């Protein structure tokens, strides 16, 4: 009876660095475990990633051999699968490698339906839990802990976007209110001036002596001139028969 696999304390997790695509709707990224399997792995061993729905991780049974590995397309029924079969040497301390693993990045194997370990896109948003499993020729040799539940993104329909502006900008309010008041003042002033003029011309009022009025010549009715009184130095009795001395 093979011995139960060693439980390693490593917990798989989504990389902490700022990567916009580390969790998408069908894929997620994991930090690549380094030096985790050293001391337990032989050269011929392979490290698998077990992916299970978060509520099915407790019932996940490690496969006895490579032939028992649950394939990708059984995920909906078996609620788990294993993928990312990699040589254990790739996770050793000295291996130069990208710091991130992408789960779900291979669309070709999903479409072609191959039986090989397929790193296909995840068809449901989850949440999922993952663990790494070191498989030797005689079965699982070591396993990490299960990760925290990883929930994938869920996209909403663009119909929920409301294109209306949330609030009227202050620009419009300022312009509209000031212009409206200016226009009202002008209209009132014109109507007032016209009305005053019409009223004046109807009532023939004298305009008085305003300082700014620009008087054009106004012809008044001039009554016939009265005869001027004689200067007092001309003492003539019958008026009109005076000769100046």
């Amino acid at each position, binding site marked *: 009876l093979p011995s139960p696999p060693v439980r390693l304390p490593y917990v798989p997790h989504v990389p902490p660095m700022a*990567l916009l*695509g580390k969790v998408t709707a069908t894929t997620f990224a994991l930090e690549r475990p380094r030096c985790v399997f050293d001391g337990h792995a032989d050269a011929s061993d392979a490290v698998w990633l077990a992916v299970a729905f978060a509520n099915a991780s407790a019932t996940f049974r490690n496969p006895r051999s490579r032939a028992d590995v649950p394939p990708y397309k059984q995920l909906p029924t078996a609620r788990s699968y294993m993928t990312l079969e990699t040589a254990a040497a790739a996770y050793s301390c000295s291996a130069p490698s990208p710091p991130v693993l992408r789960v779900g990045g291979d669309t070709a194997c999903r479409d072609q339906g191959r039986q090989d370990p397929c790193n296909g896109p995840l068809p449901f948003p989850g949440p999922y839990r993952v663990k790494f499993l070191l498989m030797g020729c005689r079965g699982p040799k070591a396993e990490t802990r299960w990760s925290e539940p990883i929930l994938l993104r869920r996209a909403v329909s663009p119909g929920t976007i409301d294109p209306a502006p949330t609030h009227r900008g202050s620009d419009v309010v300022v312009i509209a209110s000031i212009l409206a008041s200016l226009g009202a003042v002008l209209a009132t002033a014109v109507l007032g001036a016209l009305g005053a003029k019409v009223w004046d011309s109807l009532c023939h009022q004298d305009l008085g002596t305003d300082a700014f009025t*620009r008087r054009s010549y106004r012809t008044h009715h001039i009554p016939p001139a009265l005869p001027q009184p004689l200067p007092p130095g001309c003492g003539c009795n019958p008026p009109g028969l005076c000769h100046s001395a």
Partner: protein
Amino acid sequence: MAKSDDCIHILQGLLVFGNVVIGMCGIALTAECIYFVSNPYGPYPLLKDTGNNDFYAAAWIGIFVGLALFALSILGIIGVIKASRTLLLVYIILMLITFAFEMASCITAATHRDSLTPNVFLKQMLERYQKSEPANNSDNEVTKTWDELMLQKHCCGVLGPSDWQEYTSAFRLTHNDADYPWPRKCCVLDAQGLPVNLDACKLGVPGYYNSNGCYDAISGPVNTHAWGVAWFGFAILCWTFCVLLGTMFYWSGIEY
């Protein structure tokens, strides 16, 4: 009487000066609006498509208002110098009509700028970009405009590449999420137009994709245009208001 003559001459001088300024501003407004109308900038097809074409209505009104202001300012100068009541009355009434039109143009331009929220473009982009069966030519226009915009301005989406992740879209129907978390145009491209590092772009590694949104590139020119029409028109109207008040004061002092 000499003092009131001086006052009259000063008032006349001020009115002539005011009308000269109005005439020049009218020419400037016409020139500016002709420039905006004849020189649509790159993202204009997006604006046209959202149905928010008010800005061009405002600019067209601005052209005619500018010419009217110029003509009326000449009429005003003649009316003030000749002290003719009829001319000045015609001037005042026509100026009021022009004032009303320019008011409409300013408010339209300012409201239009307000209505171009990011959500307007977001909704349009998600529903029309890379639509697989384009209903009409404008869908193709939208796709082409967005592609050019993202290439030239090195931007992605309206607010960022996460627009493509947060919402489903016409793009998502034809391009699966694992291979295309966002369009290829969002990746940093080399001289041949291919992504420098496709895997890094898909993961969102800084430096291999364009992380900023295109909304600033769209709204920047719109804001400039709106400022040019709305606020410049507003300034002209404030000045015109003062000149009109002065003219009415002058007109009411002229005797037959």
